[in-house]
């Protein structure tokens, strides 16, 4: 796999002796216009921005991110809007990593090759499809690779060593370790077992390992950062949108403040 911006982001973080901050928002939540301002605010502080493609049936997500999809779709967000949002963020933040995240059916409906081309053209660096496991990923890997995109793979507490090895062979950019047996936004699992699993994954790959699902506070982020290469925070950002419903400026401020606090918690002096 050829190197791309994601690899540069993680080597920069390593040089700075800190874990990367990976932040998630759903594209088009609560609508395309406000979503643009929120993504731009989040992009100020994160190393990698995960932009969710809204889907009608987000099976791996808890209520917070489910409702983000529902708001985005109710506001009429289409795939073309998702790519436009990626392009806007890319223009203003040339150095951060951008990962498109979501479920298989929208990319599949577009055509995997067309999806890969549009993602790359908009300025994404990687793609994470929740419901495409390593066993089904060959065709996806081929098209993503052809467009210089990394295929981010998920691993979970239930992943056997055999599956860890399989996913690591397919993966590029970084490994996303799901810290709990459950859906996004649930309470974080036992930190010692997360650390153990991350160590196990490292035996199979030199890729950076990021940890997500259930990380909400700066304290949790610090604890995870101690043994991982990146900390993924999603639901905690998304939750600011309904919390400040109707007040776009307050959503933006709250997401910006949250991201800054998390970013500060991950700096080596913290």
């Amino acid at each position: 796999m050829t190197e791309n911006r994601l690899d540069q982001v993680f080597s920069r973080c390593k040089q700075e002796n800190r874990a990367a901050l990976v932040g998630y928002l759903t594209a088009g939540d609560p609508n395309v216009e406000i979503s643009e301002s929120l993504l731009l605010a989040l992009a100020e502080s994160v190393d990698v921005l995960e932009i969710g493609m809204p889907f009608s049936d987000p099976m791996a997500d808890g209520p917070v991110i489910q409702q983000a999809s529902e708001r985005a779709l109710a506001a009429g967000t289409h795939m073309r809007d998702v790519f436009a949002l990626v392009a806007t963020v890319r223009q203003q933040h040339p150095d951060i990593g951008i990962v498109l995240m979501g479920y298989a059916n929208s990319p599949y409906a577009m055509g995997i090759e067309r999806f890969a081309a549009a993602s790359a053209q908009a300025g994404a660096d990687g793609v994470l499809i929740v419901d495409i496991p390593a066993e089904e990923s060959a065709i996806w890997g081929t098209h993503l690779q052809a467009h210089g995109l990394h295929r981010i793979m998920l691993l979970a507490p239930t992943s056997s060593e055999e599956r860890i090895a399989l996913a690591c062979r397919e993966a590029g950019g970084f490994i996303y370790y799901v810290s709990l047996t459950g859906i996004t936004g649930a309470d974080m699992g036992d930190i010692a077992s997360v650390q153990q699993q991350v160590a196990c994954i490292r035996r199979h790959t030199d890729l950076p390992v990021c940890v997500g699902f259930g990380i909400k506070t700066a304290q949790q982020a610090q604890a995870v950062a101690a043994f991982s290469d990146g900390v993924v925070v999603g639901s905690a950002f998304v939750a600011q949108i309904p919390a400040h419903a109707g007040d776009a400026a307050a959503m933006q401020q709250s997401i910006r403040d949250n991201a800054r606090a998390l970013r500060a918690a991950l700096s080596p002096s913290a």
Partner: protein
Amino acid sequence: MSANIPYDMSITHAPDARGHFGIYGGRFAAETLMGPLKELEEAFAEAWQDPAFQQERMQLLQHYVGRATPLYHADRLSRENGGAQIWLKREDLTHTGAHKINNTIGQGLLARRMGKQRVIAETGAGQHGVATATVAAKFGMQCDVYMGREDVERQMPNVLRMRLLGANVIAVDSGTATLKDALNDALRDWVASCEDTFYIIGTVAGPHPYPLMVRQFHAVIGQEARAQMLEQAGRLPDVAVACVGGGSNAMGLLHPLRDDAVRLVAVEAAGHGLDGHAHAASLARGKAGILHGNLTYLLEDQDGQIQGTHSISAGLDYPGVGPELAAMLDAGELELEAATDDEALEAFRRLTACEGIIPALESSHALAAGMRIAAGMDSSQHVLINLSGRGDKDMNTVFKALGWLEQAS
């Protein structure tokens, strides 16, 4: 009673090692579920080859479910309809009133064998939920059933039955608050609980091995019907007809007839008509996509967002279909028919008036198409229709559709 009931351990038309039927099927699941699904696949394969498991399953199907169900020659209906002889496979006469229990007995036994203390299920009309709650009561397992808020309201008698049976019914408010959303929430539950929980999927869809496993547990329908046709009619039917939502009763009837010279007909819910969006005909109007763990025909928009469906029968109100049916359609093994709400209601009334059998609205779709096909055939020919369930649960819907409730109030 006989101690040794015949059972068939062979598996024909198996998917490939990763659960693909042609290009369809597969295991498109979140990473967390990949381990548990592998474990389930192995447990099912092992149980299926274990004579003790099969013997216990068959004993329960006989003494608890009431199998074999009759094959009934609807002679009066055949005469009035004209054309071919109509035969009904009477799944409506099973315990709990629909074919669904064939599968929940099988998966319930498997759950017990795997040491799981809790079962979960999704349900639309409530028939699969009731069948799951029934088995959970019998095996002494904790049971949670996910049901869309809209379905909870329109299928209240089944909700109450499940509660009586000791199950906890969880109303689902996400998405469109119907069957597909109940499935999403059941999957979300299972992702967090797979250690001690068995997910009993109610149709021939979902990630591998569910489509294969559910088909095998329902194949008893077609195996019996095949033998009964030979015995009672002296020959196999010319046509076999079943309704299709997810496709469990259809695969149950049609799979054992696939290698015979029998036309296999799947009948989808055309709702208010196939031209608009108010239907649930994913084979006729859908396109290939990925949802609920499998690649199959889906009703979706240009962006791959799953569309809301409509059918008068809650059990057919689903935007996808079992992947094997998708593969059979592409391979030319399957003929496709559809019946509208009105046609299903008319078939419901005709069977009730003509034979004294009140069918489920789901099964009424198969009847509508089956009678249509029979009318164009010769009286020496035979049409076999799966009467997958009884209509008691549908009284309210039918009364409303007939305008009786307004008159009474």
